[in-house]
Each structure stands twice: as C-alpha cells, then as structure tokens.
C-alpha cells in the first residue's frame, strides 16, 4: 500500500483584467494577448460557479457567442472544446482562436457586429491548501467524499486532470494503486463525466459510485 490519500481543498478568486470585447474580432484580438490564466478561468472557473442540470453551453466563450452575438453555430463549436484535452493553456488558447477565426472567415457581418453585451476577460488566483485529512483505504475515501467541500471535489476530480498524470482524476489514480480488487472501482470513478452536472451533484455521484463498486469486505 502506498501513501495515504491527502485531502486538499482549493478556493478560487476572480480578478478583473480591464480587458473586454464588443465584437467577435475584438474577442479574437484580445485572446492573443490576455494572460493564460484568463483562459483557465473562462473554461475551468465556470465549474466552480453556478450550473444547472441542462446547461446550454459549457464555457464562457460559448455562452457569450450565444447570448451576446446570438450566433448558435459559433456557440456550438466553442462549447465542444474540451479543456481537459489540452495539457498546456497555450494550446487551448490556440484552439480557441482557430475556432473563432474559422467562423470569422465564414461570415461577412459577424466579425464586426456589436454584441448585445460585452465579454469581460477575467483571470483568477487559486489557493490550494491542505485540509490535514489523510485517508488510508478506498473505503475511507468513499465515506469521506460526501463531507468534502466543493473545492476539494473540484481540486481532486477536475483540476487534477491538468496535473501529472495528465488527464486523470486523483481519486481513480489513487484507488488503482490498490490492485485488481479495486480495478472496477477505479474504472467506474474515471468514467464519471463532470461536465454536465453541478459540483454538488458530482459529489453525490462519486459517493454513489464508491458505495456501488467498492469490493465487499475490502482488502
């Protein structure tokens, strides 16, 4: 058995950059120069903000394309960009700009049309801290999940994908170290899709997965 699971927590605070866009062309231009932390905030920060069971679009750029520009085509394309596929924020920035430029090329009016609301670029600072809680077994982790803060769920299940091992959440990664007995549990945790539910619901779903798939009696 390896190290105990160290429960961490995080809190995110938003910071205005003073940069904004009124048109799609302005959005593209600003995207070239804004700090990478803005890209993080507008893709990932949204997960720590309010969500509903049937969100139309998954990131702030897509939401603005729909609400501010009333352009469903662009909104759909932007919503499909999955930030967890990009290890580097610069790559994600590149994909975003490519998607917008593709749409700019398709329309004569859209690039210059004034949006009904501005897009304000926001960056964030994330404070990660140790809760001092240590868990020795997958069973203990399963029991503790319903008591974790939403910040802990975000840190271990979503933010973890941006840390090595890339693309993996902390829970399934740690559980998989316990051998074949827990392979099914690790697999079931890893396939939970966090993108269409609020963090509170994600916490409930993870707790359900732990109680449904933990092997009887443990190791």
């Amino acid at each position, binding site marked *: 058995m390896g190290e105990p699971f160290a429960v961490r927590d995080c*809190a995110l605070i938003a910071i205005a950059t003073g940069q904004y866009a009124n048109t799609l062309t302005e959005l593209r231009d600003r995207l070239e120069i804004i700090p990478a932390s803005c890209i993080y905030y507008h893709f990932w920060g949204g997960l720590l903000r309010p969500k*509903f069971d049937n969100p139309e679009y998954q990131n702030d750029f897509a939401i603005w394309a729909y609400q501010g520009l009333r352009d469903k085509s662009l909104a759909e394309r932007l919503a499909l960009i999955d930030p967890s596929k990009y290890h580097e924020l610069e790559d994600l920035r590149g994909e975003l700009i490519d998607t917008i430029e593709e749409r700019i090329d398709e329309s004569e009016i859209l690039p210059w049309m004034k949006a009904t609301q*501005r897009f304000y670029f926001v*960056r964030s600072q994330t404070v*990660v*801290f140790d809760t001092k809680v240590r868990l020795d077994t997958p069973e203990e982790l399963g029991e503790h999940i319903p008591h*974790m803060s939403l910040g802990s769920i975000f840190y271990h299940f979503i933010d973890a994908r941006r840390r090595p091992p890339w693309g993996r959440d902390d829970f399934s990664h740690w559980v998989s170290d316990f051998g074949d007995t827990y392979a099914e549990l690790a697999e079931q945790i890893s396939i939970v899709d966090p993108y269409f539910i609020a963090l509170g619901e994600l916490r409930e779903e993870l707790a359900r997965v732990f109680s449904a798939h933990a092997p009887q009696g443990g190791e």
Partner: protein
Amino acid sequence: MATLLQQYERVVGTEVIDQLWQLARLLDGMHIVHINSTRAGGGVAEILHRIIPLKHELGIDTTWETITGDADFFQCTKLMHNTLQGNRIDIPDLLLRHYENINTENATRLKGLLEDADIVFIHDPQPAAMIESIPSRKGKWIWRCHIDVSSPYRPVWKYLRDFVRGYDASVWSLSEFAQRLPHPMYLIPPSIDPLSDKNSDMSEEELANAYARWGIDPDRPVITQISRFDRFKDPLGVVRAYRLVKDFIPVQLVLAGGGATDDPEGEEVFNEVKASAGDDPDVHILLLPPDDHRTINALQRISDIVLQKSTREGFGLTVTEALWKGKPVIGGDTGGIRLQVVNHHTGFLVNTPEGAALRIRYLLKRRDRLEEMGQKAREFVRENFLITRHLREYLTLVVAITNENRDRIELL
C-alpha cells in the same frame, strides 16, 4: 445558544463552514482592520455587522473602525456616491479639500492601528483618502468599492482614482464596474444574510397578517416588485405588464419601495405610477420606511412571482432576496440581474413589458415549472450568494494577496 457559525451551518452545510475554518487557519497571527463610514444603516454596515463577528468566531483578529465627519464631509461623499453612479455634477473644490482634511484627521486618530495592521480594508469613497496620511504602512491596503461605477462621471472618478491607485488591490462587485487601475482588481459579488430580518423564515401567522394589513387577497396570484421609485427600475413598465396579464388572469400587483419623498425625481416617478395605476384595487403601491425589513420579507414571501424589470441595475440584491425565498424572478436583461436570473432555471430575463407579461402568464399557468424554478432559485442562492460565500472570498483574497501574486498559490 448556538454560535453564529452553528446557525449558518444549518443553512449552508458543515462542509462550507469547515472550509471557512481551513482558510481562517491560514490567516493565523494576522490582524485585519475594516474601515467604513457608519455602523448603522446602509448595505456596507449591514454586511460588516455579520462578517466581523463571523471572523471573530473563526479566531481571526479583526477590528472594525468608522470614520467621523461633519455635515459638509458627508455632503461631499454623498455627491461622490451619486456622481460615481453616473450623475454629472461637479463637486466644489472647497468640499473636496474638506474631504481630504477629514480623512487626514481620521488617519491621525487611527495611525497606530493602521500602521501596524497586516490587512486594511477601506470601504467605499468616504475613507479612501486616508491612505495618503499613512505613508509607513506595514500591511496590504485594499479598497472595497460597493458602488455601481459602470459609468462614473469622469472628473470625480479621476479625482478619487488618485487615492485608489495607491492601494495594493481593489475589490469590485462585477467586472462591468472595475475601472482601470495599476493593481489587482478582485471581483467579489455581494451577498445576502439568510439570518437577517429581511431574509429569515417567517411564520404562517406573520404572512397572514401581511395579506390582511395590505388588503391583498390570499386566493389570487400576487406579483411584486420591490424597489425605489426610480425610472431605471421601470415601475411603469411593471404596471403595463400587469395590465397585459390582467386580461387573462385575475392577478394582483404589489409595487413597494422606500425613500421617495426625500428624492425629487423619486416623488415624481411615484406620482406617475400612482396615476398609471388609477383606481385599480388590485394594484398596491406601498411606500415603506427603509428599515421595514420584515414587511419586505413578507411581501416577497406572499408573492407567486417577483419582478425586477430594471433597465439599469447594479447587482440587484432584491433579486437575490426573492430567489432565496424560492420565487422565480422576471428581471430586466441588465447588470447583475444577468448573473442571477438564468432563463428557464431561476426565472426569465426580459426586455419589454410584453416580454414580462408573457413570462408571468407562462409561470402562473405552469405551476409545476414555477415550483421547480423556485426550488432551483433557492439552491442557486444557497451555493452562490449567501454571506458565507462572501466571507470565503474575503479570506481567499487575504491569503492570495499576502502571498506572491501568482495564479496558483499552493500552501501544502
């Protein structure tokens, strides 16, 4: 008797309070000072009256001081307040010099405290110039702007900016309000206090009394807008929306607000609304004292739907209050209302009285949707706009600003 934290724990859950404890531990040994202009009246004092005791319970060494000033000083800061919100009035130089002198006097009085503090929060313009008189500052100074400064009168903002740029950071309620400054501009939306008179639960008896007191029929639907009688709140649009609904549903309208008589334009708007309502017995136009929180609470609770049909709005805490009471809100598509009203989830954003009327009819017809949206609205506020979230962000800010200005601060 339960501590404050225990009382909030019942509302927001144990894990939220645990997280506050965790963050508070990171501030161990720090002394935080808050300065504003009054202990009584107004939203800032209301928030500090809760935030400060909560910080004390969390073991954070916190002091709250207010500045003292005379009538001329407060006349000047009232003018600043109005001009920062867009009124185009020049403030006489004499008043501005007086503002600076009063700030110097207060800074001298509080010098020891302010020099030694690790963190100083200065709230709003009244004490903003104190920073000039405390050149040897040990800690970080943060200016907290509670005002809607999306379109300030530039000469007054430029004057104030010269003081504010000396701070280590500023805090704004919405990104639309943040002005260009050479330091980090944190965004912390306001919040409501679920334990306050304005938001705490009410008995059936209190609600029954509200129906009786205002002559409202409990058997017919009620739609309500709580706001000052101000053109930006579009009360005439609300009356028009009501009339468009009335043809289909026997609805009652409550328009309630305070402070009309000391504001010439408010009185004019109030009279126009009165005239527009005519002698319709189902329109209740109520002028309430600004501290009549229990009445406002009751009116929101006896409503089926709450409106906030503003054409311009700061954050719109009346929207938050209504959502917390499980009421879907039909709000103007502007300012902070957009942050809170999510179409088909917590209410509807509208641009015209016709749009408002359509959504009112929809919700009164589809009671299942009304109930569902009301429940979602309450949970939405629980997670995002209660004072515990506000406090968490203040604590996070202090941790962030006392560490290096990095995107990610790992305290492991």
